[in-house]
């Protein structure tokens, strides 16, 4: 039977109580969890029973909820949905082969939690600034583009859009560097997601000490007060999905 892996954590005295938590989780979820241990690591797993069911959102959310419940109390490496091994022996081999990498990342995420910070242009702001006529008035348009020919009018229009895009990129860059600088008091572990829609100014994930949550909340409230025209969203705490990237051997 395939083995589903949920999370990996250090086999340290601080994690001795994990078996008790796992028992409670088993009762709550109806899933029979097991702990597979090596000298240095523990993997939280369950045996996949019954027929293979199609992936559904409910199942993915249940998997994530289990990881979330464990991450609330322990520093873990959360696995992605679909992390499956053929047998218990395979899981142990995985832990042993990658022990150094796992421990290195576990040290990095020790007593830390992940948060997602997003800053968005409001719809109104986008409407206002997508108007082609609304070029930054301080920027002069090149003299050579002035003229009545169709070609010049076309290029002038393109140039206006180009300036808008450049200004937008500079603005985003400015806010991101300001965020990195100001967040340094709380954490240096900040990553920006590039996969963003046109409305996004910032889509960042940060890893902070569990004890720094109130500082982060205060920072976010301050950020919103500096940029009242934008929408700020903070979510979390999450298991450190974005800070636990490992190339498995």
């Amino acid at each position: 039977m395939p083995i589903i892996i949920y999370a990996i954590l250090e086999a340290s005295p601080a994690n001795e109580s994990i078996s008790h938590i796992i028992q409670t989780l088993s009762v709550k979820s109806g899933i029979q969890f097991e702990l597979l241990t090596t000298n240095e690591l523990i993997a939280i797993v369950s045996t996949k029973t019954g027929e293979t069911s199609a992936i559904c959102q409910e199942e993915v959310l249940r998997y994530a909820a289990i990881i979330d419940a464990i991450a609330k109390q322990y520093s873990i490496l959360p696995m992605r949905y679909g992390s499956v091994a053929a047998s218990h022996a395979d899981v142990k081999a995985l832990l042993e082969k990658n022990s150094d990498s796992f421990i290195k990342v576990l040290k990095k995420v020790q007593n830390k939690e992940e948060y997602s910070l997003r800053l968005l242009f409001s719809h109104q702001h986008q409407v206002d600034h997508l108007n082609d006529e609304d070029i930054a008035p301080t920027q002069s348009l090149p003299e050579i583009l002035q003229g009545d020919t169709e070609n010049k009018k076309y290029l002038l229009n393109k140039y206006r859009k180009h300036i808008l895009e450049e200004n937008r990129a500079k603005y985003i860059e400015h806010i991101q560097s300001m965020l990195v600088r100001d967040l340094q008091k709380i954490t240096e572990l900040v990553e920006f997601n590039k996969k963003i829609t046109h409305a996004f100014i910032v889509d960042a994930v940060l890893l902070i000490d569990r004890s720094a949550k109130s500082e982060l909340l205060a920072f976010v409230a301050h950020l919103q007060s500096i940029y009242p025209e934008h929408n700020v969203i903070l979510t979390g705490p999450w298991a450190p999905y974005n800070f636990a990237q490992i190339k498995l051997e």
Partner: protein
Amino acid sequence: MDEDKILFYAGSANEIVEELEKMKPGTQGRINATPENVESGLAKLVLTLIELIRKLIEKQAMRRIDGGSLTDDQIENLGETLMKLENKMDELKKIFNFTDKDLNLNLGPLGDLL
């Protein structure tokens, strides 16, 4: 997302939900070629790449304008070329029934191609 995971938000909840929905991995940015629609799938891929090159040419042109080294004749030529390129792309999009949104590829963590 659990409501207890939202620690702070300001602005319209509808706007935020709308933007987050756009981020969900969908099928729009995929080349969906099947035996039945292989021509359309291939056309989408080719036109996406042409559109990428066209936009790069446009960017390069803007940089040259910024550089201030172009003569009046060169500006006229550049405008005409870019306009014709754009018109030709519009024609091709119409032939294959594609919109601007169709011509994009999702490159995962690298974001969208266009």
